[in-house]
């Protein structure tokens, strides 16, 4: 708010934004002219515009959540989300970032405990879609670069890579609904780990093992390969480490390999 502001200005900006957000009449807040009905109609346009714009943003970002709850309920949900936390960023594509947490505590969807994770997956998809361009290394080049002391290798990770970990079969649910498959879905009880990445033109989303998920998470945190393998064994004690390394190499996640020479000297 500016230091020197007239009352007229305060009442237009403050009054109109409050009337739009809080669904209170604009009359007492902002100085507007016209009949009461005209003012109510004008204000209704702004209120509808704002809510419709944000509904569109959410519907575009969360097609699968919308399909799971139905269009009508999704409108209600979008309305409640809007009022729970007025939007603060001009990057409207990020408006839905808090939706998973909101869904996690939104009583009317408590019977769909996986919904928040589906929303997380959709955010990850969008993040992968808009991420910077980069070139993934082929498996062949990665193996060649790993050389003798592969435990000391560190990796640069593709900027589009996103990882999701859920205690629900979130990838299966997402894929089934994304493809608008009308067949009923038989779900297992096991949770799923998901890799989303855009190594070429399209975002690829695949269910991956717990071990590969741990490995990719570790290398994207900056761990060297030896450390990443320790984390794999923590999450999946029987993992076949050569399979995991192949999985990293073919995932498209690696854009560069370097050798940590200090670490190598310490060995």
């Amino acid at each position, binding site marked *: 708010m500016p230091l020197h502001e007239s009352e*007229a200005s305060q009442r*237009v*900006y403050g009054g109109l934004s409050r009337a*739009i957000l809080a669904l209170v009449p604009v009359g007492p807040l902002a100085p507007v002219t016209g009949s009461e009905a005209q003012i109510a109609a004008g204000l209704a346009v702004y209120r509808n515009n704002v809510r419709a714009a944000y509904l569109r943003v959410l519907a575009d970002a969360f097609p699968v959540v919308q399909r799971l709850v139905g269009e009508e309920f999704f409108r209600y949900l979008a309305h409640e989300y809007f009022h729970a936390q007025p939007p603060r960023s*001009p990057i*409207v594509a990020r408006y839905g970032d808090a939706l998973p947490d909101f869904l996690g505590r939104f009583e009317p969807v408590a019977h769909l405990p996986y919904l928040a994770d589906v929303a997380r997956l959709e955010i990850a998809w969008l993040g992968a879609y808009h991420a910077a*361009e980069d070139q993934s290394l082929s498996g062949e080049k990665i193996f060649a670069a790993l050389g003798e002391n592969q435990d000391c290798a560190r990796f640069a990770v593709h*900027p589009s890579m996103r990882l999701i970990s859920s205690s629900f079969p979130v990838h299966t649910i997402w894929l089934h609904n994304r493809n608008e498959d009308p067949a009923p879905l038989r779900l297992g009880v096991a949770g799923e780990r998901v890799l989303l990445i855009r190594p070429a033109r399209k975002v690829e989303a695949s269910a991956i093992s717990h071990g590969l998920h741990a490995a990719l998470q570790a290398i994207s945190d900056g761990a060297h390969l030896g450390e990443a393998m320790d984390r794999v064994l923590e999450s999946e004690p029987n993992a076949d480490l050569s399979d995991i390394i192949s999985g990293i190499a073919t995932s498209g996640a690696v854009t560069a390999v370097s050798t940590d020479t200090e670490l190598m000297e310490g060995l």
Partner: protein
Amino acid sequence: MRSRFDLPTLAVGVGLKAQHYKEALAGKHDIDFFEVHAENFMGEGGPPHRWLHGFAAQYPLSIHGVCLSVGGRDDLDLDHLDRLALLVERYQPALVSEHLAWSSDGGVFLNDLLPPPLIEETLERVSSHVDQVQSRLGRRILIENPSQYLNFACNDIPEAEFLNEVVRRTGCGLLFDINNVFVSASNIGFEAEAYVDAIDASVVAEIHLAGHAIDHYENIVIRVDNHGDRVCPEVLTLYERFIRRAGPRPTLVEWDTDIPDFGTLIAEAAIAKAVMCKVANLGTPDAAA
């Protein structure tokens, strides 16, 4: 700094929508330039940028910002201005525009183009915001008149005069939205012709045309600028009135809700071109080309 002469004055364009990318880029049409909303291309990479690079290689672009809140009472969001600057640098568009409107206030982002109070205080603030944007981008921008649904009692500068004065103080140009004039005139009750005649034609570097909806709230009829229909005859009449005085100007058709097939957009743009050719005594658009 670039000038309006980067686009031929007879140019017609359409707002670029994802569902038309393929057809529009294939190029079997008479569209001269394309406009995109800046905020749709503020991600770092991915398919949206691949498409836009394709268009930028073949057509002049207009980058139209909708979220900078130039008409707001708060300071400009410098991160957002940086994002706009990056986009402008990346694509070197023929035109860059924003609105005489606000969408941010006190940290809340309302995602709509709300009208500011038309008083001297706002004039100073908007001019300083426009200066700031132009100096960050290193080029002239255009400012667009908003659509109005409420009439603030404190307004004491007519909107057309307000816009002319922002131009005089900052050296910016105008993006003149004729549908917005018609919608506002109907909703808050002023004479659209007088507004059209009052705009300084020499600084209008782009014109917007669009369709709107007619909504009813109880017994009140209100025109809503939803960019969801063909341009109505009254707006085309106002457009012709302006073109007669100003001469041809790059004209862009916006269509953002209930988006039709690309052919319908081409036809709307052709109507605008025909008006300009008629006024300029150039006969049919084909003869002009």
